[in-house]
Each structure stands twice: as C-alpha cells, then as structure tokens.
C-alpha cells in the first residue's frame, strides 16, 4: 500500500527559457506564420497611420525631402472657406441618409421576418442593389437623373403630371438626389442585419405577450424594439460614420457641384491631394483626414458613453 510521500529532493526541473528553447518550442515557426500578416499590416496599415500624423505636420512634395511646418496645415484648412461648406454638406447628407436609410429598412425587416413562405426572395431582392458595384449604381442613376424632359425619372413623373426636374443640376435638389441613390444602394445591407437580429429574438417572448393579450403593435413596441436596441444603436453609429465619409456619390455625380452644394469633407480631402486645381497639397489633405478621424472618434466615444445606459446588456 503506497501513499504519496514527501517530494524527492534533487528532482526540481524548471524549464529555462532561452532563445534555443524558444526556437525548439516552435517560436520561430509561429513568427514565420505571422510574417505575411505582420508585413502587410506594417507596410499598408500601421506605417501609413503613423505617416498621416507626421505628414499633417509637414509640407511634402514628391521631389525634395519633406519640411516641418508645425500646425500650419491645420490652420490653412480651418481657414479655408470651403471647409464650412463641406462640413455643412456632409452633415446634410448624413442627416438625410439617416432619415431615409434608418427607419425604412427596419420596417421592411419587421415585415419580412413575418413572411411565411418564400422568405428568401425578399432577402435576395433587398440585398441585390448592395451587390452592384457602386460605380455602376451611380452612373446608372446619373442616367436616371437626366434633367431633360426625356430623362428616365422625368418621363416617368411626366406621366403623372410632375416635373421635369433639374435633379443634379439644381443646388437644392442635388444632395437629396445623391441621398436617394445612396439609400437605394445600401439599405439592403441594413435590412439583412436587422433581419438576422429579428430572427434571433426568442419567439417565446412573443408567445408570452400573446397570452397576456398584447396586440400586434404592442408586441412590436414592447418586445421587438427593446430586443433590437443594441443592434439599432450599433447600426446607427456605423451608418453615421459611413455617411460622414461619403466620397463616391459627390465625386461621380456632380464633382462637388453645382456651386459646391455637394462638396463633402472627403471630396475636399481628395481635392487637396489629387484635385486638378488645388492638388498636390498632401499636408492639408492629411491634416483634414486627421481632423475628421478625431472628430469621428470623439463622436463614437461620446455616443458609446451616452448609450451605455440605454443598451440592454
């Protein structure tokens, strides 16, 4: 009969961590596996981020070495009369996109989640515009927005006695036209996200409510929306951040016109760096990108803090 006795002296064996044991332990192999990722990220992600910060404080031209100019770039950007216009336009776009692109997908998703048969076709139809390359969507809608009386939209509206409208040629209609196309192209993705969240709601909650006598509206208000709270908040901020960076639509539809009515912050950055009239000023471009990033980051932080008390978790 044996029992565990006292530890035998002299048999301590602690593995010593030397470079050799690290290599033998597979450390080198791990680094080899990580190399592709580390290289790609270091070269095309982390390094550029650092350089943006540096370049915003420099004056760069491609021929000579860059010179340090302190906060001059930032000052010039802030004094640019185009900046307030760009900011206003960007906010306008974001707000309009929110009004159209936020509640409608939600309502659509709620309806779609209750479809009894062939629900798949709803999802496919909703998501189809998202799959189209944005360039194609914009150019297609540009054709629709032809301001002549035989433009696609104008001819359709003429049948019910409306129009013809100038669409992209009017400083007042240009931005809403952009928003309309953007909503068409992107709402489908939001619908799918909402659908996934809706189907994750526990059906027993609805059943309990039904037994308790809740009507359809009550159920939506008291169960669906609260259960969706987290995802609603997340998509809201994601959408705001995405629309704040809108570039393609203003660039392709109107190049920022007419009269800079569709000039957005991203377009301004592009013009600073690559535009024909202003171009080549990388300092101002990076300065403005940095400012935009900081604003978005602060906004996200404030948003997260404000909504922490509201979200369900």
């Amino acid at each position, binding site marked *: *009969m*044996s*029992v*565990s*006795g006292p*530890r*035998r002296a002299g*048999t*301590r*064996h*602690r*593995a010593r961590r030397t470079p050799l*044991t690290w290599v*033998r332990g597979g450390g080198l192999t791990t680094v080899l596996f990580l190399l592709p990722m580390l290289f790609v990220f270091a070269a095309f992600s982390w390094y550029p981020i650092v350089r943006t910060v540096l370049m915003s404080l420099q004056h760069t031209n491609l021929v000579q070495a860059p010179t340090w100019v302190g906060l001059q770039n930032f000052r010039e950007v802030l004094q640019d009369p185009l900046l307030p216009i760009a900011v206003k336009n960007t906010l306008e776009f974001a707000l309009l996109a929110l009004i159209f692109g936020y509640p409608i997908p939600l309502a659509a998703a709620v309806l779609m989640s209750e479809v009894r048969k062939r629900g798949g076709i709803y999802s496919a139809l909703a998501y189809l515009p998202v799959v189209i390359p944005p360039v194609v969507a914009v150019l297609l809608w540009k054709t629709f927005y032809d301001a002549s009386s035989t433009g696609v939209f104008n001819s359709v509206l003429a049948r019910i006695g409306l129009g013809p409208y100038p669409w992209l040629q009017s400083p007042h209609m240009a931005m809403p036209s952009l928003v309309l196309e953007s909503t068409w192209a992107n709402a489908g993705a939001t619908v799918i996200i909402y659908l996934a969240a809706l189907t994750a709601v526990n059906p027993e909650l609805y059943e309990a409510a039904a037994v308790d006598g809740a009507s359809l509206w009550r159920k939506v208000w008291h169960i669906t929306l609260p259960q969706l709270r987290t995802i609603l908040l997340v998509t809201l901020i994601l959408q705001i951040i995405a629309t704040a960076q809108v570039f393609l639509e203003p660039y392709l539809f109107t190049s920022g016109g007419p009269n800079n009515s569709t000039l957005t912050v991203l377009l301004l950055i592009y013009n600073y760096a690559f535009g024909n009239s202003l171009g080549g000023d990388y300092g101002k471009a990076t300065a403005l990108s940095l400012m935009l990033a900081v604003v978005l980051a602060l906004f996200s932080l404030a948003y997260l803090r404000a909504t922490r008390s509201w979200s369900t978790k």
Partner: protein
Amino acid sequence: MAAIEFQGVSKVFPDGTLAVDGLDLAIDEGEFMVFVGPSGCGKTTALRMVAGLEEITEGEILIGGRVVNDVTPKDRDVAMVFQNYALYPHMTVEANLAFGLKLRGIRRDEIRRRVHGAAETLGLEEQLERKPSALSGGQRQRVAMGRAIVREPQAYLMDEPLSNLDAKLRVQVRAEIQSLQRSLAVTTIYVTHDQTEAMTMGDRIAVMQRGTLQQVDTPERVYSLPTNRFVAGFIGSPAMNMVEARLTRENGVPTVCFGAHRLALDDELLASRSGLLDYEGKTVVLGIRPEHLEDAAFAPDAPPERTISTVCALRETLGSEVLVHFAAVEPAPDREVVSLADATAFVARVDPQTAATEGAPLRLVVDTRRLHFFDPATGLAVY
C-alpha cells in the same frame, strides 16, 4: 514497452491553479494503470503532461527511463485516445488511422498492414472509406482507439474514452479495451471519474483528489484497505457509510458506539487494526460498507453485539438487490426530523428476499470484521 514514472511532478496553470501537486508514481511495463478521482482532481492534467500537451511546472516525467520534460509530443512515442475522439473530420477512417504513420515516414505497405490489422481487430473494415460524421459514437470511439493501436507506441494514454457512450455500449467496450490491452501488453494510463471502470479495468488504480495522489494500489487493496476517508468514500458504490463514533470498552470488550447502537469489535479486526488502541475513549469516524450490512432475518445466529436495531426509512428495490436506508443516529428527541438528511443516513445492501418495509422496524447484522476507522481530524485510516 516502457515504464512511465512521475517524480515530484507539479503543474501550476497560468492563472495560479495548482492542478497537480508533487505527484510521485511509477508505472510498470505492460501495466494497466487507472487514474481515478472526482472532476478537478488533476488526473487528466497528469495524463496530458505525459503526452506533452501540458508543460510540467516542476518535477520530471520519465518514459522508458528517459526524461521527457522537454521532448515534444511527437517524439515521445505515446498514443492518446481522447474523450471526444478528436478524429479528423475531413479524412476517411483509413486516412485518420494512417495520418500519424504517414508523418513518421513509414512505408506505404507497412502503413496498409497496420491500418488493416487494426481495422480488423476493432471490426472497422466496413468503415474504412467513410468519414467520421457518418459513423456512430461507438464506431468513432473505435477509430480513436485504432489510431492509437496502429502507432505501436510505448504507451497508450486514454482520457475518459467511454464517457460519451451510452451505458450498455460502455460495458461492452470496457471489456473490449481490457482484452485488447491484455493481448497487446502495452503500458496504459487510463483516466476516468467512474470508480466502477477503475475497479474492473485496472491492474492498479491511483486515486487522486485536488491534485494529490491519495492512494495507489490494486483494486482489491484500495477497496479493503483505503488509506483515508476520501478513498474509502470514493471507491465502492453505494458509498461507504460513515458516522462519528466513540470507542469504549464494555465488559472488557472493545466496543464502538454511535447513536443508540453498539457494536463489539472482533478479535480478527483488532489484530489488523492495532492502531485503534490509541483511540480508546475517544471519538473516531466509523465506516461500514453497505454490503457489509445484512438483514438479520438471513443471519439468525448472529450475536446481539453484532446487530443493530433500527427503522427502515426508505427501501429501493433494484431486482438483484435491495437498498435499505435508515438513520444511524437519531436526532435528539426534541428536534423534529424533517427529512432523512437530518439524521446520519446509512444505506444497507441486503438480500433481495428481504421483508423490510418502509416505516417498519428492521434488524441488521454487521460484519464486524470489515469495519473501517478514520481519525476525525486528519481523515487517515486507522490500522
């Protein structure tokens, strides 16, 4: 075939948990050693340290006389059977079995010989072309074992291989594993939480609790000579009954008293438990296995000093036997007995023909040659 040895082995996890504490154990060549204990006792961790899947914090493990602390799993020449089989889901059964051999550069025809040999032994010839998802649980388990067999290793390491099988299959596969191990005579470490498996399968069993080895010995000796309360209570089903008792001397005869009962201690018992003399007049923990209590109706010649009178509180009829629950120690008369848990509940395994009925008085005969005693403070058995 190699012996496996643990020398002062400890394992501390990064979060500070001490999983294995100073394990010293030597396993002989060809031995079937079972590590048994409740979950969290360190048995699986000890096994994984032999396999090389866990780093050894302190101490040394030797396989075949060679210290393997820094040897990678693939060079240790051991094979492991996992609890959840861990089969490669995208490979056929044949590929699963052949994988380890291919990695070692064994010749194609040798691989085929071993794979088909193992398949035949395990009855898997029909399944060789199928993928794990198309197999039943028992078949998957066999493939996991086959993977170990084809490697022809120095040792098999099995981590609760039967726990995912249903009860009937478990009994069947248990027997198969045993006969397989006997015919192949490979050193085996088998981990389980099921003490029945441990008792039936092991050449020796190592009982562990909270990282320390409690006792290692043959099943018979662990059963009849447990070293402490834990081992005594863990081995044997239903578990050993235990109660606080006093050792006295009545009319010159050493007696143990608990509740309202008295039992005279046998000479045979005293001879093998000489340490009891130190406990005379003191409290001690008395242990009686359920199988050592019998309905007095079937042992009419038993003297009164080996009999206890009680009331049957619960009767469980199992067909092959009857379990009778009764209160060994009645609570004080002024305390209401709400449930059996208020009193120290004992279980007796009696002859299935017993007439014991719930609520009726019952007289039980105790095999006083098989009483166990434990120190109340340390839990160590008194011998």
